């Protein structure tokens, strides 16, 4: 398959947008609408054919996203999207695989898979719609919620230190780590385009407010508290972590870390090539002889 094959014309399909006809089920004003917009723009800019894109998601408000694009998609189970995505990408490395999900999906039940996807440096982009709360289950504390956060499951305030997704992903071995914001569609688009251009595991944490269950942290709250970093992306892990951790009040957007190392899919292709060069490509009959 290749980009030359064009999809058949279809009634109702917009010439450029990759959006599907399904209306998002999100609350009006949900940050995730901004993420859709940024993604759509980025994908148009990248010129990807819709049949070459695969959105993989877990479960959560945010994980509903694949339905709203007229591309391939796999709406899987809670927390497991990175593992499913690995299978998709290795089965067909030509596909553009984009993993989307929420802060709970990625950094609570899904942490193990995120850490290992980052470590392997599989060539895909993971976009976390971080609203610091469990949206779909109607408001419980999430691993990115701040201390003292009041929710249905923390009626006396959370006593847990939030995880910093950016730091965790850098520590785990992600090779492109950025933060963006649902209300800054331009920045989001640019960041997604850059992440897609990066060969390896790219992680974008998108601040995507849930004004239904995280009322304080709505768009108004972020107004004036969000700024785009002036600094260049660091190539040094400790340095990048320093930039993130020493940033004072407010939220910093930007690409904090970027480095190149062999991708997992690339290394495996290389491994296959090396193995076959050394041992040849056996027929079934030849394999049988190894049992003789």
């Amino acid at each position, binding site marked *: *398959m290749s980009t030359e*094959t*064009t*999809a*058949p*014309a*279809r*009634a*109702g*399909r917009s010439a450029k947008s990759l959006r599907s*006809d*399904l209306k998002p089920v999100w609350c009006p004003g949900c940050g995730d609408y901004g993420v859709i917009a940024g993604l759509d723009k980025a994908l148009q800019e990248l010129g990807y*054919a*819709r*049949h*070459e894109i*695969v*959105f*993989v998601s877990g479960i959560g408000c945010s994980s509903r996203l*694949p*339905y709203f694009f*007229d*591309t*391939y*998609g*796999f*709406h*899987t*189970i809670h927390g*497991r999207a990175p*593992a*499913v*995505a*690995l*299978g*998709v*990408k*290795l*089965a*067909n490395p*030509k*596909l553009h695989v984009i993993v989307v999900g929420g802060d709970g999906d990625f950094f609570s039940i899904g942490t*193990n*898979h995120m*850490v*290992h996807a980052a470590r392997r440096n599989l060539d895909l982009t993971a976009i976390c719609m971080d609203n610091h709360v469990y949206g779909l289950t109607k408001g419980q504390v999430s691993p990115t919620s701040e201390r003292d956060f009041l929710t249905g499951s923390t009626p006396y305030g959370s006593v847990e230190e939030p995880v910093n997704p950016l730091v965790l992903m850098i520590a785990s071995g992600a090779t492109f780590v950025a933060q963006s914001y649902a209300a800054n569609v331009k920045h989001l688009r640019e960041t997604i385009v850059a992440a897609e251009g990066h060969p390896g595991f790219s992680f974008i944490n998108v601040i995507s407010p849930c004004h239904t269950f995280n009322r304080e942290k709505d768009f108004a709250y972020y107004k004036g508290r969000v700024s785009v970093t002036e600094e260049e992306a660091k190539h040094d892990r400790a340095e990048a972590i320093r930039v993130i951790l020493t940033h004072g009040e407010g939220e910093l957007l930007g690409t904090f870390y970027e480095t190149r190392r062999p991708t997992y899919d690339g290394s*495996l292709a290389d*491994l*296959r090539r090396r*193995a*076959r060069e050394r041992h*040849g*490509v*056996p027929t*079934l*009959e030849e*394999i*049988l002889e190894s*049992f*003789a």
Partner: protein
Amino acid sequence: MKARDTRYVCLRIAGEGGEGVISAGELLTRVAARRGNHVQTFKTFPSEVRGGMAVFQIRTGPEQVISQGDYLDVLVAFNREGYDRNIADLETDGVLVFDFEPTEEAPVRRRRGVDYHVPMGELAKEAGARFGKNMVALGAVARLFGFPLEGLREGIRRKFGKKSEAVVTANLRALDLGARYVEEHLEIRHEVRFPEGDGNPRIVLSGNEAIAFGAVTAGCRFYAGYPITPATGVMEWLARVLPLLDGDMVQAEDEIAAICMCLGASFAGKKVMTATSGPGLALMSEALGLAAMAEVGVVVVDVQRAGPSTGMPTKAEQGDLNLAIFGAHSTAPRVVLAPIDIEDAFRQTVNAFNIATKYQIPVILLSEQSLGYCQASMPRPDFGKIDVFEEEYATVPEDGGDWPRVDEITVGEGYPMTPIFPRYIRYDSGVSPRSLPGMPGLEYRATGLEHDEYARPRYDPENRRAMTAKRKAKYESIRREYGGAVEVIGYPDAEVAVSAWGTTASVMRHAVLRKLNEGARIKAIFPKILSPMPDAAMERHLSGVRKVVVCEMNDTGQYAKIVRHRYHKEVQAVLKDRGLPFKPSEIVPQIDAALEEVVRI
């Protein structure tokens, strides 16, 4: 009940873990098969990496070996413990080869039979082969039972050649010292002889290898797994072979990731497999539901071991049948197969892939510790005669024509009417042609949510009913295709039947053939698919049967309950839950008792 067939020889080596018991046994096995012996082996070792007891057993004869038999003809004990723990299994007139000092309090006391003391440890030291005790033993065994030394020498060269010439030489020396010791110090006083091979070199596979090879034969090109005893062998074999076939083997971060990676790769067009044991299958329960709902085929191998929980990881049990059949929330169709021996493992694996591919459904293949680690000779498969199912994908209607018509229930209010690819279109078979990511014009989103034919989330009762029926129809199609999948041996009108699944069926076959030889009017009924059960055939074969002897390696009779409850038969459940497989001699008296009782009634 002595029905020993002297054309078969069963030899066991027992020693400390780390003394090379297993590797000596495997060498002997392979060399025997090369000269045309039929062989089957069995091994156990402690889950501790070092220490504890390791046991290797080989049974060989002029025809296909279908069980380990009842008693040993030869026991080779590397130490006192090996003797103490295994002597009860030696035929009273069997041969003992041992290396320890009998004492007054603990003599080697046998009424009949022949004993040989061979100072294996000492000779190994003499040979300068630090771990050469096992080769000394092999040399002695070869001389004692008429096995050609040259084959073993050749085997040693092939096995250690890659390491270094020094290793080869040391092992060869140990082998020779063992043989020489027999020649020089022992007087042969026994009858047992290794059978002659028929000169047709055979292949020898472990159950794990048979499954891995079956997978590759069926077209598997993606495997993700997580190490676990006793399934790791499947993964390790595929790690070597898949890359040569341009496939990938991924060691996942856990079992949940493993099956999810498989689902992703399957969704994108690969034939996929993962292998695990009970604890891993338990962890995969949720994702297996996703496979059923999103209709993504996957083969999951469970090499069962003794539980519950971590249990006895290196011991045998057939304990996961319930989990395999019922281990999902809600109704998540899945197929369960269970090979009974090495050749069956190979064939059922191919079968599992065919079902998973054709019906877009998860297939669980229940193997066992005693199959995974057991090696046996099998005839070379004729690849031309093996059916491998290849999927036909959906295509975009020509000339911009319409998609195949779908039922009106799929047109929900509020749902856009743009004609999109009906990925989950309801055909009678329950199976809908799918597309692969990368195919233009056939975009859709696979999903674990309830959905309509267009793969759009839908929760209304009408759609629900239709889609549940669709998934169920698929299940019924499988039942139709495999409704007759029952192996039957013996008298069609027998009133006493026996039944079993997995490797116990293989042992039972041995017992049944023995009883049939004696003229007993019995029959054996072995279903070749365990879920969905081949009800029509089972009922046909069970009709007229008054008593069914079911043997099973677990504590509760998971299969026995199916026979008793589903087919309303009087079942005599013979349950063994001690970490070890059945022997034919444990089954024969049960058949006798059932026969007697039925006559009495």
